[in-house]
Every structure is written in structure tokens, then in C-alpha cells.
């Protein structure tokens, strides 16, 4: 590992976060925002934009990127598979399925006669989640619970069973999505497609708090198991001999990662690619010791989403969805890395 890699990653992350704060259609000045706050000005446009729009947006990008990269890294270790992503076990598909069902239900409710039913659905707010987000989250949890139940039927949690069960469940959800699309109105199709492309352009502190509550505790739990992931890298038997409770580790990883991913997906949509490429990119710089790899993947994941979100705002006149940018910018970068750096893992 090059010794400078961790430092560079952290500096780049901070720089991109700062840049993200200063990027947008309105040009604002931090100095003026500070003045407005200090003098307690009645009209404080700079301060307002900074704290209500830019800060949440940057924080969401950092948190979602960090969480997805960490979940990807952990799933790759858990499933012992380089292709694993936070979405491999169907979480994103189930989130999308949930969002679709909610959209259709809301639409039906909007046309229904009974006003109370309608207002409950349209204006309900379950601990900071809109109805669509809450439904996405609930469907994710169902998927996670069901896969866990299936995998638990065996004496040991087999990565292959987990993987195949997850992929199968994902296909179910995709079929459900197609069914919903079949029944949907054109306007709903547009809305939903936009949701699927992801976005961190949410306003105010509330979504940020939701993500902090969803991501930070899970991240701490996962980081505390970093040493055990290293052991698992040499196979479950060796890990068990080293004192790792392999079954417990698998269960904790699976549940924590899934929960974290579910919160992220239901808030900002299924932003793709971060969870796959960021851990691999960081691995190629720092090596595979998880105590270093995991925290740096989080930093790099946050940095990557900040970068993509800046690009989303700057590349064209109209803002484009971040989910498109992650693949368009991340893909080529990752392919270059694949060819240039030596990838000895999983050989």
C-alpha cells in the first residue's frame, strides 16, 4: 500500500465536499452567509441556500456514498464474491417495487371518494419518510427478512445460498415492477423512472437526519468487525479456528448492510455503481486489510457521490439524475483502473 493513499483519499473527500457546497444554480458566498448568520439578518438568502439546500445535499451525497461503498465492501467479503454490491441480494429491486406499489396506491387514493383515506396517504409521514419512501423501506425489509429466513434453514449460512436466494428474490421484485408498470399511467411512469435514477436533491435537515440514523450506527457495527472480515477472507474454517463466530458474523453483516442499504435506497433511490466500484478502486490503492479498506471506502464513496452530484449540476443546463452520472463517469474510470493496476484478489 502506498502510505500516502489514505491521506490523499481523505483530502480529496473534503475538497469535493467543499466544492459541492459551492456548486449550484444560485451563486452564493460563504462569507456573506456567515455575515448573515452573525448579524442575525432578517433576509438571509445566502445562509438559507447554504443550510437548507447545499448542506443537506452534500451531506446526503457523503452519507449515501459512504454507506453504499461500505455495504458493497462488506457484501464482497461476506459473499466472498467480487461482483457483490449492496443491491446483489435484491434490495434495490424490492425498494423500487415498494415505491411503485405506493405510487399506484396513492394515485388510486387520489381518485377515490373517501377524503380521509386520500389525505392519510398523500400527507402521511412515517418518521420522516413519505409514503413512497416508507413503502420502499418496508418492501426492502420484507426481502431481507425472507432471505434471512431461507438461509437460516441450513445448518450454516452458505454464501452461495444467500446469493442465489437474493438474486431470485430480486427477479421476483422485477416481475412485480413490470406488473405495476403495466397498470401505471404515463405520468406515473415518468415519475417512477426518475425515482429509479436516484437523487440527493432533497431539502432541509430531515432527510439528512434519517440517513445519519440509518447509516452511522450500522457503519460502526461493520467497522468493528473489520478484523473478522480479514479472517473470513481465508475461508470460514480458518476464521472459525481463529475465534471468529462465523455464523454470527455472517448474520450481523447481512442484516446490518441490508438495513443500511434499505434506508439509503428508500431516501435517495437506488443509486448504482458506487457499491461495486468504490471498494475495488480503494482496494487497488490500499490493499485488502479491512481496517483500512472499509473506512477509506466510506470516504471514497462519499467523495465519489459528491463528485457525481457536482457533475450532475454542472454538465448540462438542466440537472441530470445522479444515478446516470455514477455509471457514466465511474465506469470508464474503473475500467482504466482495472487494466492499469494489478488486481490479485480473487484470482
Amino acid at each position, binding site marked *: 500500500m502506498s502510505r500516502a493513499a489514505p491521506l490523499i483519499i481523505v483530502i480529496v473527500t473534503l475538497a469535493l465536499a467543499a466544492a459541492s457546497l459551492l456548486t449550484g444554480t444560485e451563486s452564493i458566498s460563504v462569507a456573506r452567509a456567515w455575515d448573515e448568520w452573525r448579524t442575525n439578518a432578517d433576509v438571509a438568502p445566502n445562509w438559507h441556500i447554504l443550510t437548507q439546500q447545499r448542506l443537506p445535499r452534500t451531506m446526503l451525497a457523503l452519507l449515501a456514498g459512504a454507506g453504499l461503498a461500505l455495504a458493497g465492501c462488506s457484501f464482497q467479503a461476506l459473499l466472498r464474491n467480487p461482483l457483490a454490491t449492496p443491491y446483489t441480494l435484491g434490495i434495490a429491486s424490492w425498494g423500487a417495487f415498494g415505491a411503485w406499489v405506493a405510487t399506484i396506491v396513492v394515485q388510486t387514493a387520489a381518485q377515490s371518494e373517501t377524503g380521509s383515506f386520500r389525505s392519510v396517504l398523500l400527507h402521511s409521514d412515517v418518521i420522516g419518510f413519505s409514503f413512497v419512501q416508507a413503502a420502499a423501506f418496508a418492501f426492502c425489509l420484507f426481502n431481507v427478512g425472507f432471505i434471512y429466513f431461507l438461509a437460516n434453514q441450513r445448518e450454516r449460512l452458505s454464501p452461495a445460498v444467500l446469493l442465489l436466494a437474493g438474486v431470485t428474490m430480486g427477479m421476483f421484485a422485477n416481475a412485480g415492477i413490470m406488473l405495476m408498470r403495466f397498470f401505471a399511467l404515463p405520468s406515473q411512469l415518468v415519475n417512477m423512472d426518475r425515482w429509479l435514477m436516484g437523487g440527493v436533491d432533497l431539502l432541509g435537515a430531515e432527510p439528512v437526519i434519517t440517513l445519519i440514523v440509518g447509516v452511522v450506527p450500522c457503519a460502526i457495527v461493520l467497522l468493528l468487525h473489520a478484523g473478522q472480515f480479514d479472517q473470513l477472507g*481465508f475461508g470460514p474454517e*480458518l476464521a472459525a*479456528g*481463529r475465534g471468529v463466530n462465523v455464523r454470527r458474523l455472517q448474520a450481523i453483516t447481512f442484516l446490518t448492510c441490508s438495513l443500511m442499504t434499505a434506508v439509503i435506497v428508500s431516501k435517495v433511490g437506488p443509486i448504482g455503481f458506487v457499491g461495486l466500484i468504490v471498494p475495488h478502486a480503494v482496494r487497488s490503492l490500499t490493499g485488502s486489510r479491512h481496517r483500512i479498506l472499509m473506512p477509506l471506502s466510506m470516504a471514497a464513496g462519499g467523495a465519489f457521490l459528491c463528485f457525481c452530484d457536482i457533475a450532475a449540476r454542472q454538465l448540462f443546463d438542466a440537472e441530470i439524475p445522479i444515478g446516470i452520472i455514477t455509471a457514466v463517469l465511474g465506469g470508464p474510470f474503473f475500467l482504466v483502473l482495472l487494466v492499469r493496476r494489478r488486481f490479485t484478489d480473487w484470482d
Partner: protein
Amino acid sequence: MSAHLIADGVAFSYERGQPVLNRASINIESSEFTGIVGPNGSGKSTLLRILGGLLAPASGTVTLDGEPMARIGHRMRAQRVAFLPQSVQPTFSLTVFETVCLGRHPHLGALGTLTPHDRDVAERCLDAADCTDLRRREFMTLSGGERQRVMLASILAQEPALLLLDEPTSSLDVHHQVEIFDLLRRLAEDGYGVCVVTHDLNLAAQFCGNVLLLSGGSPEPVAQGTPVDVFAETTLSEAYGSPISVSEHPIEHTPFISASPRSRQSR
């Protein structure tokens, strides 16, 4: 630190399978070098997993210093008993030194930080397994035998009281085979309890104080005792289900075991 691992009357079968072991008993004790031998599929690895607490026996007891294995915490157990599986399947590429340091896991704190002492131990174990010159190499790029020596070093770095090793020399050259067995014997003389599964009956005869012979045909062990007692032609032939001849090793004067192919025997 002395330790005593006892399996008594152990029986085991895998999910919905034939019984693999029945009424198997073995003692692994500090300062002793025990061998487990027998044909392919006779349950050697299974027995070692049971001894290491990785599998729970269907009946019989396994105790470590008088305490039932199942009641000992994973970490506590790993501090006293180390287990080297027959094969490891690495997914991540670490350097040799990092790989050996992984052996320190049961001794590390919650954050997994290596102390200078941990590094010293790792260096010493690298040296003991004759892989100091490999320390900067990527584990994934090593040859089969080099990997095996590095894995042995990482098991030694665990600094357990008892070592359970599943075929630790199966890919080693003649020279390293003897060196590793000699190292294990010296470790036993220094107070470690060592148990190896091996297919090399001659090395077992030369180095082990005790051997347990498992049978290909039945889940019950065939014989147990000193190599001279166990490695008798009739006993071995029964275990392997094919004639095996025993003579005397020309230099060591221990039993010298050889097998001939069936086609030659029938002539």
C-alpha cells in the same frame, strides 16, 4: 501454559449422511506429538474439526482442560487451540507478513491494532517456518508449498497451547517436510501439544509419539498407540483395505511403510 484436550467416545455424521466417526477417543496434551492417519474419507479432518470446536459431536464429549468445548467462547478457545484447515481459499491478496499477522487475531483488542510485540511474534514465526525471505511477497503469488509454510507460520503466530494441523506438509518438498515435522517435534518438546493429520505414515512413524489410525471401512478407529504398535502390517492392511508392507527404516529404525499397486500384488 499446559493444556489438555480430550475427545471421548465421539460419534459424528454429516447432515443426513452415513456415520463418519463412532466411538473415537483421543488425547491432545501439552508436550505430546500426536498423529491422526487413515485413508481418504476416513474422517481425519472431521475429527480434527471436532477437536477444534468447529463441529459439535453427535455423541461423546470434547473437553478442554476439563471444560466442555461448546461452553468455551470462540475467542478464548482460539487463544488456546489453533486449527489449520486442510485447504484455505484466500479471496483477498495480502502480503505474506500481513497474512502471518492475521494469526494474532484472538489476541488483539476491539480495534485490531497490532502492537510491536505482535509484530515480533509474527517475525519469529516467519523464521520458524522458513519463510522470512517471502515476507514482502503477495500471498496469492506463492507456490503451493510456500503458501503452506506461510499458513503454518500464521498458525504459530496464534501462540496457542495446542496446535491442530490438517495435512500441514501435503505440498512440501522432502526437505521441508522433514524440517516442518522436526519443528513440530521441537515445539512439542518445548511444551506445545501438537496434533497432525497426515498421509505420510513414515514421517508419522518417525516423529509422532502417538498415532490414531482411522479406518476406511468403518467409522470406528482401528488402533491407537505408539507408531511401533499401530503400524503393523495386519492393522494397516485392515484400515486401508489393501495389503501394506512394513519393514524397518534404514536410518531411523522406525517402522517403514510401503504400499504396492493392486496390479503388482495379484501377480
